[in-house]
C-alpha cells in the first residue's frame, strides 16, 4: 500500500516536472515549448511501449533461463548459459538489424507497418532476457540454502518450497538490479531510431533535421531529449534501488 502510494507520488512528480518544464518554456519560449511537446508526444508512446515489452519479455525469459541454469538438467544448463553468452555478445543494433532485415518473413503474421516495431521488441526482450537471467540467477542463489531446507522439513515439495519461500525472497533481492535493467532498456530503445521507429530519440532527431537552418536546434533538442530520458530513469531507479536495498537490509536479506 505504502509502496503503491510512493510510486504514484513519483509518477506525479515526473508529470509535474514535465508540465512545469513545458509551462516555463511555453511562457518564455513558445517555440521551444513546441519542440519539447513534439518530442514528448510523438516519441514517448513508442519508447514506453518498447521498454515495457522488452522488460516483460526479458522477465519471463530471464526467470526461465535462471531456473534452467539452476535446477535444470545438464543439457538445459548448457542451453541457458549458451544463450546468455550469445546474446550478451551481440550489439543490440545488430540484433535489431537481424530481426528487421536479416530474417525476411520472420514476422509474417504481423501487419507490415508494425514489423519493425516487432523486430525491436524481440531484440530488446531477447537481450534483456540474457541479462535478467543473470539477475535472477544471482538472486535465487543468494537465498540461503537453509530456507529451502526448512521448507522441505515442513513437508513442502521442491516446487512449493521454491514458489512460497525461495522465489518471493529472490524477487525482492532482484528488485535493485532489476530497476537498473529498466534504466538500461529504456535507454536502449533509442536504437529503434536506427530502423526508423519514431521514439524519443528519433523525434528529437527529426525535429532538428526539419529546421535545418537553425543549427542550435540540435543542441536544444538533444538537451530536451536528455532531460526526458533522465526524468524516466533516475527517479525510478532511485526509488526501487535505494529504498528496496534499505528494506532488504531491514529484513536481514542480501548481506551487506
Amino acid at each position, binding site marked *: 500500500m505504502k509502496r503503491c502510494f510512493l510510486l504514484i507520488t513519483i509518477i506525479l512528480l515526473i508529470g509535474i516536472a514535465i508540465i512545469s518544464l513545458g509551462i516555463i518554456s511555453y511562457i518564455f519560449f513558445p517555440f521551444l515549448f513546441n519542440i519539447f511537446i513534439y518530442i514528448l508526444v510523438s516519441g514517448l508512446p513508442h519508447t514506453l511501449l518498447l521498454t515495457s515489452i522488452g522488460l516483460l519479455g526479458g522477465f519471463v525469459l530471464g526467470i526461465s533461463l535462471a531456473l534452467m541454469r539452476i535446477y535444470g538438467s545438464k543439457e538445459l544448463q548448457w542451453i541457458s548459459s549458451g544463450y546468455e553468452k550469445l546474446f550478451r555478445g551481440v550489439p543490440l543494433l545488430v540484433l535489431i538489424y537481424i530481426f528487421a532485415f536479416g530474417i525476411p518473413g520472420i514476422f509474417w503474421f504481423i501487419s507490415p507497418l508494425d514489423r519493425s516495431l516487432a523486430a525491436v521488441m524481440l531484440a530488446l526482450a531477447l537481450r534483456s532476457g540474457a541479462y535478467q537471467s543473470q539477475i535472477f540467477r544471482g538472486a535465487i542463489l543468494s537465498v540461503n540454502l537453509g530456507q529451502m531446507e526448512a521448507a*522441505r522439513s*515442513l513437508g513442502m515439495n521442491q516446487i512449493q518450497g521454491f514458489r512460497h*519461500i525461495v522465489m518471493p525472497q529472490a524477487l525482492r533481492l532482484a528488485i535493485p538490479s532489476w530497476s537498473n535493467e529498466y534504466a538500461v532498456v529504456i535507454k536502449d530503445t533509442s536504437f529503434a531510431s536506427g530502423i526508423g521507429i519514431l521514439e524519443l530519440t528519433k523525434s528529437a532527431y527529426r525535429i532538428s533535421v526539419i529546421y535545418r537552418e537553425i543549427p542550435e536546434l540540435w543542441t536544444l533538442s538533444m538537451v530536451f531529449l536528455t532531460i526526458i530520458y533522465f526524468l524516466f530513469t533516475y527517479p525510478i531507479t532511485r526509488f526501487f534501488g535505494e529504498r528496496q536495498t534499505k528494506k532488504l537490509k531491514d529484513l*536481514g536479506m542480501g548481506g551487506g
Partner: protein
Amino acid sequence: MGKPVISVVDIWKSYNDLNVLNGVSFELMEKEVKVIFGPSGSGKSTLLRCINMLNPPDKGEIYLRGQNLMDSDVDLNKIRSRIGMVFQHFNLFTHLKAIDNVSIGLRRVKGLSKEEAHEKALMALKSVKMAEWADHYPAQLSGGQQQRVGIARALAMEPDVILFDEPTSALDPELIGEVLQVMLDIAKSGTTMIVVTHELGFAKAVSSEMIFLGEGVILERGTPEHFFTSPESERVKKFLKQLEVLYGSHEELLKL
C-alpha cells in the same frame, strides 16, 4: 510401552570417502525425549537429517510408526510434515512475519484455510510465549525469540516427533535459557523429541535416555543418571569433563 514412534535400524551414511554414520540403531517411544550428544563431526546432525530424510541414509532402515521411510513408494513430503525440525540457525523464512512463518506449513502442506491456520499458528506462538511478537519479521527478533518461533513452526504441524539440531548452540548465553525453558515445557506436555544438544541440565531434567555418538557409532547409552554418575568409556568421561569445564562449575574453570 507400545510401539516405537521412530525406530532407526543400523543406518550408514557417508559423504564421498567420509564415513559419517557407521551403523546406528535406536528406538524412540511415545512421549520420550532422547538426547544425542557427542563431539563435533560424530554424525549427530547427519543422524537427524537421515531421520527426516533430508539426507537419506545409504544403508539401513528408518521407521515412523512402523512405516519404512526407505521404501521407494513412500511420500516423503507427507512423512516430513509429520516430523518437525528445529534448526541450529533457526532458518526462519526471512520474508515472512513470525505468524506467517508458523502458518505457512499449515496452509500449504496441511491445506488449512487462512483463518484456521492463523488461529493454530497463534496458539503455537502462545505456547512458546511469542504471541505478542506475531507481526514481527525474523530480523526484528533476537536469536532466542527466533528459535522459539522456529519451535512454534515445528509444533504447529502437530508432528509425531520433533527433531532439534543443536537448538541453542548459536545463541548468546543469556538467550539460551528462554529457549531451553520452552523446550522443557513442550517436553513435559508430552511431545516426543530427539534433541541434539550439549545442554546437560536440559538432558538431566527431561531425557529418558542419552546417546553418546562418536565416530558415527553409539559409544555409550543410558539414563542421565548413568552418564553423570558412572560413565563407562574413557572417551565419554573425557567429553563430559570438557563439557563441565565449559558449561559447568566455576571451580573447574578456575583450576585451569
